[in-house]
């Protein structure tokens, strides 16, 4: 019944709304944006007028908006005023770093969470399970940047195993790159790993009570096979959804983590541009990040109904 078409229309509507909001957000800027950019030269009327003309700030808002969005749709996000660099170029340079950070963090989180959750569910209420439950609750309460500072203290300052800040680019050296990405991605990963453990553990426990699991056990299949082949997939649907939703949390966390570890990604650029009032850069990054988040969730949603046939008929 037009499920996908309806979702697509909704997606476009949300993306449109996001672009309007992002645009309006920067209009909230107190005072005159041209003035903010010029700083001490603000008194110079001619300079202000020139900047306003450059940035089309003298036009009415709807015109400014259509101009901006028109450009964005063609990959033109405007020009950064502070560095006179194309915003799209800045994004292009910085996006890979953020993407790598997010992917590594997700991989880390899943690599920690999946085995731990499976074993916890398998030996439910055993000492391992109880420890895991307590630890995961505790680690939900550690802010990512606090964890990062502690990790830096232990693994970089005390034991000097990993670099405290900076990044070796992927193209330069894979091992050094992964080493410089280790602490940032681990800081992001631990909190969401805890979410995943709790979720997958309880879903696994539910699944393990199904009749077909009993059947498999009666047939004498080894536990490893039952857990991995029979129980894991049907238990991992909500994990998948939450992994999608968590992309948003990761992006937010990445802003702080990139700043903390001096990684040249989108997040650190966002903070820098906010301080410089370079609002076209801020607009561009916020739009990209929000749109990316929406698209990821859309993809997860689509994937979800592909993986679990039951949800295809649920929308009655």
């Amino acid at each position, binding site marked *: 019944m037009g499920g996908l078409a309806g979702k697509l229309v909704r997606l476009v*509507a*949300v993306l449109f*709304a*996001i672009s309007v*909001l992002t645009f309006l957000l*920067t209009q*909230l*800027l*107190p005072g005159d944006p041209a003035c903010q950019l010029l700083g001490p030269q603000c008194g110079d009327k001619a300079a202000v007028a020139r900047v306003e003309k450059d940035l089309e700030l003298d036009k009415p808002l709807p015109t400014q908006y259509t101009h901006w969005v028109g450009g964005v749709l063609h990959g033109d996000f405007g020009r950064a005023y502070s560095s006179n660099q194309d915003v799209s170029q800045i994004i292009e340079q910085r996006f890979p770093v953020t993407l790598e950070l997010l992917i590594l963090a997700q991989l880390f989180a899943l690599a920690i969470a999946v085995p731990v959750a499976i074993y916890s569910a398998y030996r439910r*209420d055993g000492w391992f399970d109880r420890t895991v439950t307590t630890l995961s*609750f*505790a*680690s*939900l*309460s*550690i*802010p*990512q940047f*606090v964890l990062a*500072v*502690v990790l*830096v*203290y232990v693994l970089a*300052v005390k034991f000097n195993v990993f670099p*405290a800040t900076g990044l070796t680019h992927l193209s330069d050296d894979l091992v050094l790159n992964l080493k410089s990405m280790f602490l940032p991605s681990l800081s992001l990963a631990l*909190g969401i790993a805890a*979410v995943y453990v*709790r*979720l997958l553990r*309880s*879903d696994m*426990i*539910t699944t393990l*009570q199904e009749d077909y699991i009993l059947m498999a056990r009666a047939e004498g299949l080894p536990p490893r096979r039952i857990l991995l082949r029979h129980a894991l997939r049907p238990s991992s*649907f*909500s994990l998948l*959804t*939450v992994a999608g*939703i968590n992309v*948003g*949390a*990761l*992006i*937010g*966390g990445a*802003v*702080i983590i990139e700043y*903390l570890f001096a990684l040249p990604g989108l997040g650190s650029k*966002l*903070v820098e541009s*906010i*301080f410089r009032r370079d609002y076209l850069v*801020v607009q561009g990054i916020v739009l990209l*990040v*929000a749109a990316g*988040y929406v698209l990821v969730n859309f993809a997860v*949603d689509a994937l979800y109904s592909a993986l679990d046939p*039951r*949800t295809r008929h*649920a929308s009655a």
Partner: protein
Amino acid sequence: MRRRESMTTPDNGADIDVELPSVASEGMVVADAEPVPVAVITELTATPVKKRRWALWLPAIWIAVVVVSALAAPILPIDDPMKSDFGHVATGPFTGGHLLGTDNIGRDILSRLIWGSRVALTVGVVAVAVGLVIGGALGLLAGYYRGKVESVLMGVVDIMLAFPALVLVIAITAFLGQSLRNVAIAVAVVATPAFARVARAATLTFAQREFVTAARGMGATNRRILVREILPNVILPLAAFALVVVAVAIVAEGGLAFLGLSVPAPKPSWGSMINDGRGKLEDAPFISLIPSAMMFVTVLAFNLIGDVFRGHFDVREGAI
């Protein structure tokens, strides 16, 4: 026999618990675990309540201590949080008359912690109060009237939730300017849609119940049903959610302060204290680690209490 109790399975419904709040690390993420009809039902609170008494009292005592010292900060015998003691710069705890030591420019850490807790608590309480009232009201209306009201309100909520929470908070604070009031507003703006979601979900489950039909049959107006019948039921799960959001708000404020976007510079805030000490991790790690621990313990306390409450009043979103 105890053991028996904790074996409660999700099947018998006793401990069914929707994966709603409880995540503090970042963002309001969890509030939108909605569209998962099948499997989000978990049993996180399988431990019987009796065994978890400490999980209520210990954090409650901690929060009371933090709140009282924050309120009493002006009359407590502590140093000026912004004055440097140049005789003791970056000295460890229990030295030179500074109970928790001094930071990298000789300011008393204990005093800064206490004054910083005023910032964290203010943002937490104000943002949550605003989010609770506005978001709660919107969610109530959407869940009760359904139809167009619901689609419009929830459309707006979905769009708000489409922005990664922390990015939105950073952007709003940056543009409003740095002050305690603006940080609280920014966090409130982000918290409101999450409250609306929770309130709507709770309202949906209650709006179908017999006591509402009965009230309507006796001629109660919509307003009366909303205020007298539904609100008292919805307020409990909302309050439980609010406790968790206080924790999220404290983390958000900490993150902003860490980036230098919360209250302006010499004023103390936990996040900025952690950031201040980063350069000194090698020789004076306590400058960062003490406020880190403070933040962790406080956030944990709110989460623990929230979790206990949640176990009691949780909403079953999939119940319809």
